[in-house]
């Protein structure tokens, strides 16, 4: 039994090491991939612009729920005016980056993993290698960079729409004073809070995109293998995102 435990532990350590080696390999290849910037633009479109609708819709609903719950809670203390502060800080620091990363893993991460996994399964990656085209450089790095560029922007859009959602419920429906909603927010949200959100979403962008391309690239070249890679992408991205979120929050405090 201890032997089993040890073997599973060493197995996960090996895959963590491989993940880091894969990341280093991607970073080394970044300068050469920048030459074909049109590929990166295409991937920013795939990862970012195509995720826009789901991000905006979810941001709106999360903001509206925050407005409603925050209003109910703050009303007990007679300080509904702090609603703007509460929702803005919650969205910018935590919910924006984290929920965006989870949605990104579900919307763009799965697409990346299954796309690259299918290329592996249909031997397209091997064909590229035969034509002396490095698949890492041609396929993997542009997708990785696309995700890294798209994530902070998506998180910012999420937070923005969320704040407007909270304003919609708080000010328009619950009649919190519009002036104090915005002015209390301005007085208590600091640039440090926004920076924390940006740093978080950048790191989540790297981790989620890395996991997606890694799982796709190393997928078992069968139909089942591609399916497993997609599932693992979502599960691993979610766990790593929440774990890193705790770490970064602790560092910023």
């Amino acid at each position, binding site marked *: 039994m201890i032997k089993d435990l040890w073997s599973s532990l060493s197995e996960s350590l090996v895959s963590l090491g491989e993940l880091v080696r894969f990341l280093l390999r991607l970073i080394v290849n970044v300068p050469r991939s920048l030459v074909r910037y049109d590929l990166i633009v295409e991937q920013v479109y795939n990862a*970012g612009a195509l995720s826009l609708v789901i991000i905006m819709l979810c941001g709106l609903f999360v903001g509206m729920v925050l407005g409603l719950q925050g209003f109910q809670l703050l009303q007990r203390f007679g300080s509904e005016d702090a609603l703007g502060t509460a929702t803005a800080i919650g969205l910018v620091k935590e919910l924006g980056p984290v929920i965006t990363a989870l949605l990104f893993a579900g919307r763009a991460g799965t697409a990346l993993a299954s796309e690259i996994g299918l290329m592996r399964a249909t031997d397209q990656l091997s064909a590229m290698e035969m034509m002396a085209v490095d698949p890492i450089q041609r396929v993997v790095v542009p997708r990785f960079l696309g995700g890294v560029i798209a994530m902070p922007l998506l998180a910012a859009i999420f937070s923005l729409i969320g704040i407007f959602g909270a304003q919609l419920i708080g000010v328009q429906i619950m009649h919190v004073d519009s002036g104090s909603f915005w002015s209390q927010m301005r007085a208590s*949200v*600091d640039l440090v809070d926004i920076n924390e959100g940006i740093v978080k979403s950048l790191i989540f962008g790297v981790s989620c995109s890395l996991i997606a391309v890694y799982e796709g690239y190393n997928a078992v070249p069968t139909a089942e293998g591609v399916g497993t890679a997609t599932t693992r992408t979502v599960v691993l991205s979610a766990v790593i995102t929440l774990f890193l979120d705790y770490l970064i929050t602790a560092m910023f405090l």
Partner: protein
Amino acid sequence: MRNSRALSLGTGLFMLLGFAALLFLTTQTTSRGISFGRKPHYDISAKFDNIGDLKVGAPVSMSGVEMGRVVSIGFDWNAYKAIVVMRIEAQYDKIPTDSDASIYTQGLLGGKFIGLTAGGAESYLKNQDRIDFTQSAFVLENLIGQFLANFAKSTAPAASAEKTQ
């Protein structure tokens, strides 16, 4: 060709929207971002016995009009007092030298801010000047303590008077 053009357009729109959102977050939800080009300003300081929970960035106002912000809070080891440096916008350049600075609270649970009350002097505060007349933050515990002491003092003679009668 047309396809690639549409793709670039979509990407461009996405980037624009993303950066617009970032710009909005940094300028409209925070207190700092609003001043893009740095407005001309001058700094004045004041020493307080107790600043309560006054924070850097708190507004400085006169008659309710915001004239500047607190830029730093330090400690003077000679006088054992807090030194508060305030940055006042240059357009408000006629604050008399004998003005009075007090720390007030916004609402019941709001943050602290500094309120200036104009004095009667003919000369005006300049950069690096100091306001000498200050009033500390209103600390609820002290006030309750004072109230209790006064209450005890006022009731004690009455009680003893009752006994003699």
